[in-house]
């Protein structure tokens, strides 16, 4: 393991992803290198189909690369089996999705509790309540996702992502399904909560939204399967 990898919460070295479809082979990522450090907010921009979401999935250990190495919290993810990766993600990695992905059969509070209970956090209930309070939804803790607006659902998702105090948070188009005002509120929450977690979680943000990207520490553009820094 390299020294750099030791200090980075997430790192990709020579990362490649090829898929074979009915129309032949397709290279999505090729020889991609990336390093994300604790407390850093990185925005990944790019055209649709450029491979942003594929990269996010690989960095989070949700998918297997075809080439290269992926490191997460000091461990090489691509060498772990599916359960090993799940164990690594538990409590260390948070997610915010474009379509919120709350469990429809659980209340807002139970959705936030879920990752805490999966990791066996002792004061799970208190932390879930605090997280909901922080996103301003204490009053709606007992509501089911279908009873909440899109913005509220995404706020619950943010509370769920931050409640376990993760080392890194991956957000895939978190404002993609929201109107502008609500989207801005969500951006504020995502960035503010990162500061408040205490551990200084890294934030990896895949987005089309230049306003959201502007507020990150670093901006990278996906192009031809590689990342280019943006000014």
């Amino acid at each position, binding site marked *: 393991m390299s020294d750099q990898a030791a200090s980075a919460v997430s790192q990709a070295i020579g990362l490649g992803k090829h898929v074979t479809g009915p129309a032949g082979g397709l290279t999505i990522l090729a020889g991609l290198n990336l390093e994300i450090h604790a407390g850093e907010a990185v925005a990944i921009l790019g055209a649709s189909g450029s491979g942003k979401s594929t990269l996010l*999935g690989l960095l989070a250990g949700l998918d297997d690369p075809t080439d290269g190495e992926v490191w997460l919290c000091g461990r090489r993810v691509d060498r772990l089996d599916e359960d090993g990766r*799940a164990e690594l993600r538990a409590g260390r990695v948070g*997610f915010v*999705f474009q*379509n919120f992905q709350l*469990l429809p059969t*659980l209340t807002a509070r139970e959705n936030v509790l879920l990752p805490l209970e999966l990791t066996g956090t002792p004061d799970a209930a208190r932390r879930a309540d605090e997280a909901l309070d922080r996103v301003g939804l204490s009053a709606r803790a007992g509501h089911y996702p*279908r009873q909440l607006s899109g913005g509220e659902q995404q706020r619950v998702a943010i509370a769920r992502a931050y409640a376990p105090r993760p080392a890194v948070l991956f957000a895939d188009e978190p404002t993609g399904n929201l109107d502008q005002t609500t989207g801005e509120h969500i951006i504020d929450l995502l960035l503010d909560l990162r500061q408040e977690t205490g551990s200084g979680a890294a934030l990896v943000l895949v987005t089309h939204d230049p306003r959201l990207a502007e507020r990150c520490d670093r901006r990278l553009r996906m192009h031809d399967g590689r990342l280019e820094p943006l000014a």
Partner: protein
Amino acid sequence: MNAWRLTLRLLRQDWRSGELYLLSAALVLTVAAITAVGFFTDRVEATLERQGSALIAADLSLESSRPLDVRFADAAQARGLRTARTLEFRSVVMGERPQLVLMKAVDPDYPLRGQLRISEALDAPDRPVESGPPAGEVWVESRLLRLLELQIGDSLGVGESRLRIGAILTDEPDQGRSFFNIAPRVLMNRADLDATGLIGPASRVTHRLLIAGAATAIDAYRDWASTRLAANVTLTDALEARPEFGSAVERASRFLHLATLVTLLVAGAAIALASQRLVERQTDAVAVMRCLGAPRRLLMRVLIGRLVLFGLAASLVGCLLGWLGQAGLLAALADWLGTDLPPASPAPVLVGLATGLITLLGFAVPPLIQLARVPPLRAIRRDLGTPRASAALALGAAGLALALLILWQAQDLELGLKLLGGVLATLLALIGVVRLLVHLAGRLAGRARGVWRLGLAALTRRPGAAVLQIAGFGIGILALLLLAVVRVDLLESWRETLPEGAPNYFLINIQPHEVEPLRAFLNDSGIATARLHPMISGRLTRIGERAVEPSDYDDPRAERLASREFNLSYGTEPQSDNRIVAGRWWTEGAEAAPQFSVESGIAETLGIALGDTLTFWVSGHEVSGPVTSLREVRWDSFNVNFFVVASPALLRDEAATFITSFHLPAEREAVVAELARRFPSVTTLDVEAILGQVRQVIDRGVLAVEYVFLFTLGAGLLVMYAGIQASLEQRRAEHGILRTLGAGRRTLLTSLAVEFTAAGLLAGLLASVFAEATGWLLAEQIFELEFGFNPGLWAVGVLGSGLAIGLAGTLATYPLLIHPPLRALRGGSS
């Protein structure tokens, strides 16, 4: 995290969200059907056993030609059982002249079960009595008083004693066991027996030890005694005592179990469809949990734990419903079974719980295993779709569960394997044919236009889902059509096995010289000419070169048959209700060479094959001939039938008595009195009562089967509902897109109607074919009934199914067209 806590939380939420309702309904219905039938048959069997007890005057009877070892009585008394001994023998009593009678000497406790009935005068009504005649007294059949011209109060010479005639014996619970008796019956007290001097060491006496008491003690005693029986002792229990009910009760039980199995199969399909829908709705949730770090084994534990807990809860509800169901059924049959039924055993509850879990695991686990394999990437890439269970795993698990349940329910390996083979072949054929039809519908869609194209293409767009859906519809319609087949065709055929004109009188002990006068008398009395069959006693001594010894047979029935005398007959033609199953009946009539025709059941029991030479000991000499045919006999037809029939050449010259049976309407009973006067030595047996009881078993059996089929009906409707629901998720998104593209509600509604009607027509066609084939197979192979093809079924099956599914599917999916398309496009689930 504690898997149980998560399991319970998810289960509670699933329930609240309504996602489990469909699955619950299917499971509750299956378990309710199984337990209702279980409780019902359990209690009916116990009741029949009790009624059977009345026919042997005990719960158990030990019978021997020698005095029974005293330890059998001692052991019964030591277990708290009641006992009584009877001795039965032929003897001659003295009135004005001697008369052959059948004497029975009984203990004061006789009968232990059932009722003795006596009357005080020839024309007085009879009344029940608690015990047999007191010492010094005999009770006699009215026939004896007429034959000897005696009165009640006169004395009768019995051996060296003279005993007073105290009453006329009108009914004796165990009388039916001596069916072919020429002699009038006389009942005496056993205390008087020694003084008569009738019983010596060489006397031919049938000794019986009657035993009665609590069921558990009887079972324990039966186990104890059956291992200690000498070769000449036979043990009879209450169920064996009613062979005339055997066939009817067995058919009823088969029908009931069949109805249960069909319910199970149909509900299984509903469970499979409902599980698939559950998987579709939970894919995102599982993907998110995996993203959040839930390991696969935890998810497996949670998913299966949730299934087991849910299965147990639903099965318990099913058991409760089953119990209520059987209580309802028994209330409907109270006039037959009475209201004071023995309680049900708890066994059906265990069977119900086990069935619920096995069904659920077999049909729902494969989709759930796939669910645990949802890639976490699905959380950010919805295009990855819903995982599909592998066909091999799904079929394997469902097949295994079905095999277990069918073999268990059938309670007969051969029947179980036949049913299982039939069910699996049907399922495979169903899936194969549906695939083909879906493919053809796709070809048709290519040539169609507009809504027709949209509707038909919908069937082929999701070929896997369409196959599952149409197979589901097909199974649902099949259940409904089978209901019609069973209700209309099979149950009617069953009723017809005992038509209104079934023989209700038997005449036995007809001497050869009485044959022609009796035939003339019957003709003159307007009784349809019945065949008079010669009857000759013979003991089977050899099969081929092998000597027949009762001890050679392990099977108690075979042992009994080998030790007793057969009633043989001869004739030129087989009885009308006989069916030759192997070999050929002799064609040369009276001139045929010596040969035998044997009933197939007894041939199997005794190990007699076609071509074997049988040797019987008849009237002091041997009679031999080859077996040239095996026959199936309808014993429940109440016609005169014989296990072994010979060609006339073989037995024509032996001393025979004759037997016949005929139907006499109740209003013409005077004929019987005249017959008794004109032919005093001929014994008339009135079996109207038994006939009535068998008819009642059939009628009530039909009612019970129809009742249980209500569960099947429920399951059929459920599977169709599940089929409609199964495609709802995908349809929601598709309609969102189509409406965004400008498709009007009317266009979509018509395309839905086209799609569902096409699916309904295909399912109806399949179901009609399978229903007819199943009905034919069931009738011919399992119930041994006549089956007629039913063209009306096809019309109702195909058109009815197209109309019903077209309408129901369109109506159920219509709400999707009311919601704004944006909600569907965003993946909103409400």
